[in-house]
């Protein structure tokens, strides 16, 4: 589904991604793990078409990302960004409705089909009761769920999420992870999500992509990848396996 070859990207002289090769199959659910500033966000933004690879290629569905029109790519890849905007004047409903934009033509009104999808996506993310609220009136978690609903409304085969659980309390973290697992198994969406909580990744994401020193250091089943040795190497933290959980300490 996603094929990345020799991808490099840097800001100024600083190389963030250095000659990366990854292939993600259709319907896979990956946790993207790594320390701050290791290039997780940059990787997602390259796949989402927001950044143009400086070297190498990123292909989605067998075709290079830059070969798609902006509209075509938005029908294939949805991206939930890390930073939430609170200064928008649109209601949650209008915000989610924007997710239907890649399917609409200019000067055309939304169809009943669009309305139905928006309602379904908002109910799925438990945001339907917030439909008239504005971002400034919502909590961080509520806004986060609205953004996920908008990405779902895009009805893309690929879903990229940048730390979707960072603004949420524990109960809502589980809720979102269960929702994503549900979408992955039921709709076979390919999901890549950046997450910092290793235990959350262990519990919900079947596969993991570990980034260290600007390159992929592990790709495969999460349980086998998150060994104490590798965690020490990537995060500089000692880990202890307790049952099916990790106990982390300095």
């Amino acid at each position, binding site marked *: 589904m996603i094929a990345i070859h020799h991808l490099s990207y840097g800001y100024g002289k600083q190389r963030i991604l250095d000659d990366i090769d990854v292939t993600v199959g259709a319907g896979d659910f990956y946790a993207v793990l790594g320390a701050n500033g290791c290039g997780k966000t940059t990787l997602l933004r390259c796949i989402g078409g927001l950044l143009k690879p400086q070297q190498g290629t990123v292909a989605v569905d067998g075709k290079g990302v830059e070969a798609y029109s902006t509209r075509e790519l938005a029908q294939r890849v949805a991206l939930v960004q890390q930073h939430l905007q609170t200064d928008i004047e649109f209601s949650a409903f209008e915000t989610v409705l924007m997710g239907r*934009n890649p399917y609409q033509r*200019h000067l055309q009104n939304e169809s009943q089909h669009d*309305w139905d999808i928006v309602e379904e996506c908002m109910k799925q993310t438990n945001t339907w009761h917030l439909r008239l609220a504005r971002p400034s009136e919502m909590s961080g978690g509520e806004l986060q769920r609205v953004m996920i609903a908008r990405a779902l409304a895009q009805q893309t085969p690929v879903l990229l999420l940048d730390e979707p659980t960072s603004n949420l309390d524990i109960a809502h973290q589980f809720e979102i992870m269960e929702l994503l697992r549900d979408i992955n198994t039921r709709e076979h969406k390919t999901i890549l999500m950046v997450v910092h909580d290793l235990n959350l990744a262990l519990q919900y994401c079947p596969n993991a992509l570990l980034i260290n020193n600007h390159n992929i250091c592990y790709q495969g089943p999460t349980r086998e990848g998150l060994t104490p040795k590798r965690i020490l190497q990537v995060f500089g933290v000692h880990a202890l396996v307790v049952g099916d959980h990790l106990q982390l300490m300095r």
Partner: protein
Amino acid sequence: MSKSTLDIVNNDSQRPWRRANTWLVVALLAVVLAGAMAGCACLGVVRFSWAEMWTSPIFWQLRLPRVVLTVLVGAMLSVSGAVYQSVFRNPLTDPYVLGISSGASLGAAIAILLGLEALLLGVGGMALLTGLLTMLIIFKVATIGNRMHTSTLLLTGVCLTFLITAIISLLMALRQDKMESIIFWTMGSFASASWLDVIILVPVALAGLFVVVYYSKDLNLLLAGSETAKSLGVEVEKVKRRLLLATTLMVAFSVSTCGVIGFVGLVVPHCVRLVCGANNRKVVPYSIFVGGLFLLLCDTAARTLLPPNELPVGSITALVGAPMFIVLLYKSKRKY
């Protein structure tokens, strides 16, 4: 689903008037505007009986083109303001505050000095050229990263306005014989309105307004941020370029017929938003008609309040607009 989602959302809304069908409101506004145009054309220093009106050249050659022109200019300036506010993601922008109007007036002044008035599109063309140049400078100077900060944007606009005013003053000092007509561009007035102006302005208005209406959905997404817009399928750079070109065209040709009139693009879209919300698919079409109406009333006030003198229409729009600008600035200060 038994009931349509749209109905559910609309019925929940605390503001029932936002439910109104866009076409219905547009039709209503068009009727009101047509009535106001007819009414304003009848008002004036010289009073006629009904019978005299149909034969009077004052009515046909002076008032009627003037009324049509104010409506066209008001519509174009208002819509341009709505576009700038969404593209720059800043509620405090309009063609005047950004300095685009002054930029265009410089071109008009240069054209007059060069004697290009005789050419059909000479003044408008030069105004467009300098207007675009001003837009380019603002875009380059005020963009930091991919965002435009309020203070940089406003300061750039103010500085450019100062610079351009200085250049125009210099030009006037050099060519004192043309002073009268140059002052006209900097003050703004509809006193010299003619059918020729209307003929030039109609195609510009139709083309420019169509581009903006066509991209009004994209304006909503741009308001949510360039990156968001891009990941939702908007070709951000292309759309922005076309919108800014269309609006600069409208502003430049407005300025070339009636000079610099400030704050119209600020007052009208904000008043429309107070009633119908931020959705540009409503704000843009409504602003066309409300903008036309606003400037029509301002200009009618300008020419009828203190007969036989005519007040500068720019000072009437500024009397309404400048306090509103301050209120908006105060509100946005509280927000950040």
